[in-house]
């Protein structure tokens, strides 16, 4: 008898918690849980109307997120401006040295450019693709623990498509994974889900650059017979047929016998990016 009463109590408590709406609640928990599950099922559906609504929702939330981040952005800008003023003299000396070094490098680069163009003529290289880069601003840089990604301010309106390579300067930093009408998500090479086919030079070894949610992605499936040294350069290999080959990514850094990649671009300092739109029909 007592058992029955306690079971009734549990039933009443569950009904009260899940189904009954209090005076100020407009929805019951049960209805909203059901709606969330319905949303999850919608993720698997690829209908045009559903995609459009999803894209519109995401665009709206990204704009809201951008607006919310303005005050903190402004505050951190003021702090960094103050820090820059404090370190002005130190920076001036550093820039003087950098300038000296760059001047000596320019003459060397000019020679290499000339040599490169002569070699290209020699092998009669024919361009198989015309490259048309699109520029975008990083709207939101939310380094989520689950997803290392950026939101950029171009999307379907600028013919951006999933899988396109995203560059910071000349360096590869990620690829487009989600396109809305006015915005897109860039999955960075450091993300857990990022796997890129790469080439390690000068050994010519092929490998997979694999992100782990940390700053330094690792090189996997490296041939053991090839000698990989610290400082070797890493480029996209283009083997997967998505990205063009030869886009610089970073250089080899060996830590505890694990071959890692020190990226050429600091992912925390990226404000503008280039999206490589390639017309392979030409």
């Amino acid at each position, binding site marked *: 008898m007592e058992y029955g009463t306690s079971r009734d*109590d549990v039933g009443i*408590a*569950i009904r*009260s*918690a*899940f189904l009954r709406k*209090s*005076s*100020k*609640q*407009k*929805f*019951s*928990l049960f209805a*909203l*849980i059901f*709606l*969330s*599950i*319905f*949303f*999850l099922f*919608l*993720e*698997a559906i690829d209908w045009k109307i559903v995609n459009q609504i*999803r894209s519109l*929702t*995401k665009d709206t*939330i*990204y704009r*809201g*997120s951008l*607006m*919310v*981040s303005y005050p*903190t952005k402004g505050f951190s800008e003021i702090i960094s401006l103050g820090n820059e003023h404090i370190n002005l003299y130190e920076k001036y000396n550093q820039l003087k040295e950098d300038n000296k070094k760059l001047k000596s490098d320019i003459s060397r680069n000019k020679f290499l450019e000339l040599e490169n163009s002569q070699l290209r003529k020699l092998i009669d290289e024919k361009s198989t693709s015309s490259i048309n880069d699109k520029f975008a601003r990083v709207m*939101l840089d*939310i*380094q*989520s*623990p*689950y*997803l290392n*990604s950026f939101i950029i301010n171009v999307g379907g309106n600028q013919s951006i498509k999933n899988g396109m390579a995203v560059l910071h300067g000349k360096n590869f930093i990620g690829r487009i*994974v*989600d396109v809305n009408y006015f915005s897109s*998500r860039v999955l960075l090479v450091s993300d*857990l*889900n990022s796997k890129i086919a790469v080439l390690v030079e000068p050994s010519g070894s092929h490998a997979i650059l694999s992100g782990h*949610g940390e700053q330094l992605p690792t090189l996997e499936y490296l041939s053991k017979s090839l000698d990989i040294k610290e400082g070797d350069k890493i480029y996209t290999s283009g083997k997967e047929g998505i990205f063009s080959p030869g886009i610089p990514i970073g250089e080899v850094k060996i830590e505890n016998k694990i071959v890692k990649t020190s990226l050429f671009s600091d992912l925390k300092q990226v404000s503008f990016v280039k999206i490589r739109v390639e017309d392979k029909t030409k």
Partner: protein
Amino acid sequence: MAGTFKNIRIKVFQSLPLIILFYISFKGSAVVDFNLFSINISYILVYYWVLRKPDILGYGYIFLAGIIIDVVFGFPLGVNALSLLIVASVAAYIRVVTVRITLLNDWISFIPALLIANFIFFISLYFTDFPIDYLYLFKNSAFTFIFYPFLWIFFSLISKLIEL
């Protein structure tokens, strides 16, 4: 005049949990990531307010905040909304079956809320083919639990200001 001022003050403090929830959702700070650990602030916030003052944090707002977190963090739509609603469900059930309000009671009853919500989170991501670091998820749950009393004190302060 004094009555009007008091009403405004109460309204402001009553809206504070909702403002914090939407702020952290839009800002992408629902999960605060430190170098060694991370804390899911949205779970604690939803659990505390649904348990203590359910009229302040409507379930519809919790659902909306979950959708915003999903979009901002790049999860499939509905994953965080569902896990936040699960936290709210456990809190609503605990509210019905308990009488005494103590930090210890709240803290212990937060364990099933956290476990069920993260299990649902894990299952939803598993079925939507979204790979995540499971060790990270485990550490996140553990530190969210450890951090609960700190936010409990902070929210209790807000709660007292509403009642004043």
